[in-house]
């Protein structure tokens, strides 16, 4: 499918013509340099990205990529999953308008198993299917300070389920969101997005904000002209930050949300014996409240105590679930002498839930269940050679209601041969605990008819164990002169007991009529083996007004069935549901002091197991600061073809992700002086 001429023209213009135009504008206007500002003027400039992380990131013995607020703004993305495409090593595939498959270093799946996702320390990973139901979790993107994307296991610090990676979404402090901010936008698929934020306080001891957001999104491209993936959602929330004596911060925040997520599912019927597609909506209600007390003393001594409660109620055409999660977590940092920092902590999470049956072929036994996790960790960061060599070692011990005790130790080393570069390596053990589905589901699907109809019945297996991984990682970061940097990370992971299916009994059932055969299949820990890969992500500040960045990610699997696993597709499914190669190229240009031109090209390799071909596409965004208070942007997404398929999951023809345009207007009125 060759890209149309106009799309090529836009890309060509973006990559070639604009830099010259921008440069010319730079020279002619001789814009005011910050070095010519007075002290008062400097103090009145509103700054972005008030993150203090860059220097810490360079010294972290972890494959981490930080997506800043400015990166999010300039990506033109309108949802959290789309923003995550900015990080290397992560695979984001849009299944339809409101569903995504997200994996880190492989393991792409709608239910992003083994990938832990947190919003301000609150886990949005659900024990129902051991993953994240992305459409139900939104945020006002303007409230996000940064997203830390950690590739590789992080069980020692983050706990169970941080196996393939951790996504840590951190919102801004209320002190950084004073004033009024209004965002409105509309486009060809994003029909309308409206956001409002009000914030105030004195900027030092007490600050607050409230926000609301509404989204309406249309269907993507369907060969059969279906529109089942239209959706809308609304969300509102607040945050208060209260600081005492400079070292204590108490944060209280909460959100309520309601979403109406269209989807097509496939449900088995006995008479006639068939698998019937069912279009409907998942109605998602959510509410959460979180409190955190953080104490930081100079020199690194401090603690953080947080507690939250999170309620969800999902009502879908084929199932419903009510869940309440209670979580308490405590982390303490204690410097010991000049060389050691001891971190320790403990936490528990209790999550009672009730399954609501909607169709006869999907049930859980028992329907009500309480999953619980208790854990504690201890870790020491040891300065072996000051400013040169660090060793971090520790372990978490966790008890969860499905598999009992699990240990998740890790050892990491970091060496900084020069102030601008670092080399690190790590060995980590991590576990992914079973989900409700693997433990207790009873799900029947129609297979085929030979003499009588044959149905497959997945029956939860209480003997299903945690999936375990031992990860070996190494990385190198360097500053190449003042203008360029390079980040390289490689991994070799050993996986044990990945989920697949084993054979149970075969029974003949008389009811419901007609007579049919049922083949029981059980989730078993049937696949083991290794995965290897690496990510290379360079960045280059070509001119003060022009930055280019890139990322190449590679992953391959070497997995095999173990005895007892009859699931002949499992190995191919793991190997072929994630692209082996991904490329991303970004160009960010400042045109004068008010204009922005952002271009992204990306290539994603084929998904063999899903018969999804490779695709390449491009996004362009033009932003213009009309005034200090008003900004307009026009973003074109997926411009290189009318549509392309990124994943295949829903029954029926695969959904094409369509070319789209989106126009956004942001107006902010900030208090001039706090």
């Amino acid at each position, binding site marked *: 499918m060759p890209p149309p001429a106009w799309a090529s023209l836009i890309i060509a213009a973006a990559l070639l013509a604009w830099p010259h135009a921008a440069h010319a504008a730079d020279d002619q206007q001789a814009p005011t340099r910050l070095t010519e500002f007075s002290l008062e003027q400097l103090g009145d400039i509103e700054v972005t990205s008030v993150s203090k992380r860059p220097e810490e990131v360079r010294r972290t013995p972890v494959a981490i990529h930080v997506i800043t607020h400015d990166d999010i703004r300039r990506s033109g993305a309108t949802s959290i999953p789309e923003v995550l495409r900015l990080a290397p090593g992560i695979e984001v595939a849009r299944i339809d308008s409101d569903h995504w498959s997200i994996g880190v270093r492989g393991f792409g799946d709608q239910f992003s198993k083994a990938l832990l996702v947190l919003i301000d320390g609150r886990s949005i990973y659900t024990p129902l299917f051991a993953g994240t139901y992305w459409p139900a979790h939104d945020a006002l993107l303007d409230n996000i300070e940064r997203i830390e994307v950690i590739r590789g296991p992080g069980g020692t610090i983050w706990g169970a389920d941080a196996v393939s990676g951790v996504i840590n979404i951190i919102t801004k402090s209320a002190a950084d969101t004073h004033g009024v901010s209004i965002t409105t936008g509309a486009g060809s698929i994003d029909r309308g997005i409206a956001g409002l934020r009000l914030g105030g306080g004195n900027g030092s001891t007490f600050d607050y904000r409230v926000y609301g957001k509404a989204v309406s999104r249309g269907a993507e491209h369907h060969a059969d002209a279906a529109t089942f993936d239209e959706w809308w959602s609304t969300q509102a929330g607040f945050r208060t930050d209260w600081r005492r004596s400079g070292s204590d911060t108490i944060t209280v925040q909460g959100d309520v949300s309601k979403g109406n997520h269209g989807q097509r599912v496939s449900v088995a019927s006995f008479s006639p014996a068939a698998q019937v597609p069912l279009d409907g909506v998942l109605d998602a209600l959510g509410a959460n409240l979180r409190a955190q007390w953080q104490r930081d003393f100079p020199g690194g001594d401090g603690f953080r105590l947080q507690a939250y409660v999170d309620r969800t109620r999902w009502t879908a055409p084929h199932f419903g679930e009510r869940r309440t999660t209670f979580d308490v977590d405590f982390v303490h940092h204690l410097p010991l002498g000049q060389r050691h920092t001891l971190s320790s902590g403990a936490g528990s999470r209790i999550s009672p839930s009730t399954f609501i049956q909607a169709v006869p072929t999907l049930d859980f036994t028992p329907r009500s269940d309480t999953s619980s996790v208790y854990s504690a960790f201890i870790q020491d960061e040891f300065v072996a050679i000051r400013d040169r060599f660090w060793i971090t070692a520790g372990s978490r011990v966790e008890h969860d209601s499905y598999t009992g005790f699990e240990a998740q130790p890790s050892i990491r080393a970091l060496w900084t041969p020069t102030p601008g570069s670092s080399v690190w390596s790590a060995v980590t053990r991590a576990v992914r605990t079973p989900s409700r589905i693997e433990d207790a589901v009873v799900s029947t699907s129609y297979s085929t008819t030979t003499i009588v109809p044959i149905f497959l019945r997945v029956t939860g297996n209480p003997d299903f164990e945690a999936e375990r991984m031992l990860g070996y990682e190494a990385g190198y970061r360097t500053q190449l002169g003042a203008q360029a940097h390079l980040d390289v990370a490689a991994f070799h992971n050993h996986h044990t007991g990945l989920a697949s299916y084993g054979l149970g009994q075969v029974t003949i059932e008389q009811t419901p009529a007609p007579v049919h055969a049922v083949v029981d299949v059980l989730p078993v820990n049937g696949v083991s083996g290794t995965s290897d890969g690496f990510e290379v992500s360079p960045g280059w500040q070509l001119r003060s007004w022009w930055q280019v960045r890139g990322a190449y990610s590679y992953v391959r699997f070497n997995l095999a069935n173990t005895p007892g696993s009859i699931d002949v597709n499992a190995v191919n499914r793991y190997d072929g549901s994630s692209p082996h190669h991904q490329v991303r190229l970004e160009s960010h240009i400042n045109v004068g002091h008010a204009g922005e031109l952002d271009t992204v090209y990306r290539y994603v390799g084929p998904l063999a197991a899903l018969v999804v071909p490779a695709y390449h596409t491009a996004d362009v965004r033009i932003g213009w600061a009309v005034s200090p208070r008003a900004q307009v942007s026009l973003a074109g997404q997926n411009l290189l073809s009318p549509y392309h398929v990124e994943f295949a999951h829903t029954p029926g023809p695969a959904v094409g992700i369509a070319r789209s345009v989106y126009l956004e207007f942001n107006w902010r009125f900030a*208090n001039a002086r706090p």
Partner: protein
Amino acid sequence: MMRGHRRILAACVAAVFAAISVAGADAQSPRRSEYEVKAAYLFTFARFVEWTPRPSRDDSSFTICILGADPFGATLDMTLSEAVIRGRRVGARRISEPDAAAGCHIVFVSTSEDRRMADLVPLLAGAGVLTVSDMPKFTERGGMIQFVTAANRVRFEINLQSARQAGLMMSSELLRVASAVRNATGSM
């Protein structure tokens, strides 16, 4: 459905153009990155401080040093690329030990050095350099200028006593703009 889309789009375009025509007259100053502004401050401070000459220091140029992990990256070098203070060219250096500070005029102390602040303060004061940082409680612990970010704006606090002890003279203009001036250890 399509007609609904077009109407929303048309309304949005109209709203945007209305806003442009209202707001277009305002000065164009988009937001800057935090460290872009801090880099400009480091340069600007030099105009309001008098250094006592030292034999260890080459006063024919002006040197800004980053001690520890560098949060500025290319930003600092770009800010200073054509900058001149009192006819002297300005350069940036990255150092990892306080001994190397003797050749600097301004030392930005990275938050990576938080834990050895107690050791650094006397060494840097002895070198007669202006110390600047954004680590918490920097001025309380003997640092001279501390960046404080509130409501998305970068301001600074001063410990005048520390500056005097290092033989630095701060202009009244600098003290006037500071959001807080600490005159002796422990008092504001």
